[in-house]
């Protein structure tokens, strides 16, 4: 756990004092990623570097797992914190494996042990150790170097990591890939992480919590969904963007927006299909095959007008989504195929239920409705 308590930094400059951190208080629970977000110059880097004491603070306190960082030996403190910077900072004179083992070597780890761990870590970020371990940094692409930068910070297995725009210098496609890899690592290692970013999309994707700064002040400290749904003030609303509700689509899975809707099989009659639709008040019903996979659908108009078995009258489904995918994917598929609903499957392709445009709108709107009511209640008092 990382705790900041009224953390303050004032730089004395030629043009007078600059307050880069102004009584910042927050807490990052163990195993979570907290994104420090805000426009350039708002004090994100300063806040981060006060934690590993690269920048001395003016006042306030910092605790890591309950221990006051001021009371620790600065070298020990830093060796116990994984540190990743935007410029990566791999040492060009050392091979990749030696770069990774810098901290373990300083800590006096057994060489065989640290080298073995370095190899495992390389493998986890999809860099074949046989190929890359003995290369020099200049022989790697930017994305590969950044992966090594992350792995190096993890090498001595520190409980806490500080990352300053670690993926900022990478092209957008590679960035997505590295972000995903990192989230996978994090799932396994569960580090407590402070992560600086100026990119709201990255923050929403990577963060358990988001801390938004303006001119050294912590403006909002909340879950990504709350920051998007309920920006605390106009500055934050503007910073997260007018399309913030669309961004929330990424945070919700199809499974959360899905509802159960019984399906029919090819052998059922159209009459039965019509009955199901009437019960549900839907104008369609999904048809599944013998393995329980969605195979097509029947329209209400067809079911009411015709007779016979479903096998003769069902239409094909243009596309399905998996319950684990995010709503952004689902909505994108709806637009692509010009449909208002999709059949949802589990990871094996078996039918689970349906997700509709109306259902999505309703789900996203619920939180706004609740806030509006709360707002009215507050106003009434």
């Amino acid at each position: 756990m990382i705790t900041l308590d009224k953390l303050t930094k004032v730089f004395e400059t030629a043009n007078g004092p600059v307050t880069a951190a102004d009584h910042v208080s927050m807490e990052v629970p163990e195993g979570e990623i907290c994104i420090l977000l805000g426009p350039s110059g708002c004090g994100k880097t300063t806040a981060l570097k006060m934690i590993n004491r690269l920048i001395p603070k003016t006042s306030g306190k910092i605790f890591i797992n309950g221990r006051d960082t001021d009371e620790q030996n600065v070298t020990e403190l830093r060796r116990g914190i994984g540190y990743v910077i935007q410029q990566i900072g791999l040492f060009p004179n050392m091979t990749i494996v030696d770069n990774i083992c810098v901290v373990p070597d300083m800590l006096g780890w057994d060489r065989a042990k640290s080298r073995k761990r370095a190899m495992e870590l390389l493998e986890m970020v999809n860099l074949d150790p046989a190929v890359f371990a003995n290369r020099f940094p200049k022989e790697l692409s930017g994305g590969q170097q950044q992966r090594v930068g992350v792995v190096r910070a993890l090498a001595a297995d520190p409980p806490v990591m500080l990352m300053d725009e670690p993926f900022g210098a990478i092209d957008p496609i590679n960035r997505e890939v590295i972000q995903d890899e990192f989230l996978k690592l994090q799932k396994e290692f569960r580090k407590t992480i402070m992560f600086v970013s100026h990119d709201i999309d990255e923050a929403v994707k990577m963060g358990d919590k988001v801390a938004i700064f303006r001119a050294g002040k912590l403006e909002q400290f909340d879950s990504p969904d709350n920051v998007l749904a309920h920006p605390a003030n106009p500055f934050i609303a503007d910073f997260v963007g007018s399309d913030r509700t669309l961004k929330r689509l990424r945070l919700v899975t199809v499974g959360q927006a899905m509802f159960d809707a019984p399906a029919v099989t090819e052998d059922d009659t159209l009459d039965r299909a019509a009955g199901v639709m009437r019960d549900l008040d839907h104008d369609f019903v999904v048809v599944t095959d013998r393995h329980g996979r969605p195979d097509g659908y029947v329209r209400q108009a067809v079911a009411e007008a015709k007779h016979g078995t479903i096998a003769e009258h069902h239409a094909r489904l243009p596309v399905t989504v998996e319950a684990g995918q995010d709503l952004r994917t689902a909505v994108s598929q709806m637009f692509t195929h010009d449909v208002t609903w999709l059949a949802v499957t589990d990871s094996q392709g078996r039918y689970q239920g349906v997700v509709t445009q109306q259902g999505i709108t309703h789900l996203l709107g619920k939180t706004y409705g609740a806030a509006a009511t709360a707002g009215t209640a507050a106003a009434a008092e």
Partner: protein
Amino acid sequence: MTTAVIAFRRAPGLRHLLTLLLVFALGMGVQASGLVTDIMDYWGDIVFLSQQHMVLVLVSGGLAIVTGVSLGILLSRPAMRRWAEAVMQVLNIGTTIPTLAVLALSMTLLGLGFTPAVFGLWLATLLPITRNTYQGLLAVPPALKEAATGMGMGSGRMLLKVELPNALFVIFAGIRTALAVNVGTVPLAFLIGGGGLGELIFTGIDLAEPGMMLAGAIPTALLAILVDFLVGQGQMWLIPRGVNPLR
């Protein structure tokens, strides 16, 4: 900075070639005029004076490397930042003084003999090494130092493991320049009683004795080539591959 390094990398090759051509042409002429036997008359002197010559290079060059690198490191430390530029300015002015004048000044201070010769040569050689060490260390990207500090590396370890290795190529370039100056100046050491092959060259000129002059000049040239070759090899193989543009 980079252009200087590239120019420097190209120059030695050219210099080797020119020197070899020169030696070859001389050899042809010498053969024809029967100078070879004249030169061989001085064989005993050549061997003895070459040894003196090499001792001068090794002692003054070695001392210059040790002191130049140390001084460069010292000046590059943050605590010295306020003085470093001023000291570098003084050293820069030092280079504009011709090496012969440096030797003369050294003689004025220390008299005649081996010690003033070594001192003068050391002084003339010191600057490129100090300057390149200092600038090479300053040019180490701040991100590397920040990463090192952030990982809990102390300043001594950082100097050895990060700063020096990453400045090594520039430092070596300085050593190469310095030793070229050194080897070129050693013949002059004879003038202040330092010995070396200069004795054959200058006496040969005085006595208008081409055989004697060449007996000094040819080994001097060969020695210069040898030294440059050795430093070049050092530059090639002692600098880690990750920071060595030659590999």
